[in-house]
């Protein structure tokens, strides 16, 4: 059950990233670009989540790497939002 949740998270985040990248391709805007970058990083985070909790054993801990991927994505988005306002 848990593996299905993690897999669905990974697929969902990849779908979001794909939709946003396609939206940016059709109508380029800086905010869309940074949002797409954010969700690409979140997709990486969710793929690492699946790998960490389902594929690899407890001796390998990818939690810090996962959080780093999320932080990179979130930071890119916050940067884009500030750029939009300033």
């Amino acid at each position, binding site marked *: 059950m848990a593996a299905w949740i993690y897999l669905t998270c990974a697929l969902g985040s990849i*779908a*979001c990233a794909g939709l946003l990248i396609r939206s940016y391709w059709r109508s380029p805007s800086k905010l869309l670009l940074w949002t797409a970058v954010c969700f690409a990083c979140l997709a990486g985070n969710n793929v690492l989540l699946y790998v960490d909790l389902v594929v690899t054993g407890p001796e390998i*801990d990818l939690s*810090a790497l996962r959080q780093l991927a999320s*932080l990179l994505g*979130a930071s890119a988005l916050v940067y884009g939002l500030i750029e939009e306002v300033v």
Partner: protein
Amino acid sequence: MGSQMSSPWAFWATFLSGAVFFAFFVAALFFRKFAQRTGDRFFSFFAGAFTLLALERISSQMAAVREAVGPATYLLRLAAFALIMIAVIDKNRRARVE
């Protein structure tokens, strides 16, 4: 997850998770402001999604929840991704109609 708590990376994972929470929270506030300013529900969906992602960061770090609920906290993430997909599809549909 229990073994990850004793991992040397556990401190960094927790520290970075807090930073991620704050970034998502700030993003939600920005999108909420954009929604108020423009009246566009696209930004409201995004504000809701990032609020859910911020809440998911809190719930996944709560020790008691981690033990009792485990992977169910990731359903908050799924809900956030669903909101994002709805927002983009809705926006594209409205653009086609116009």
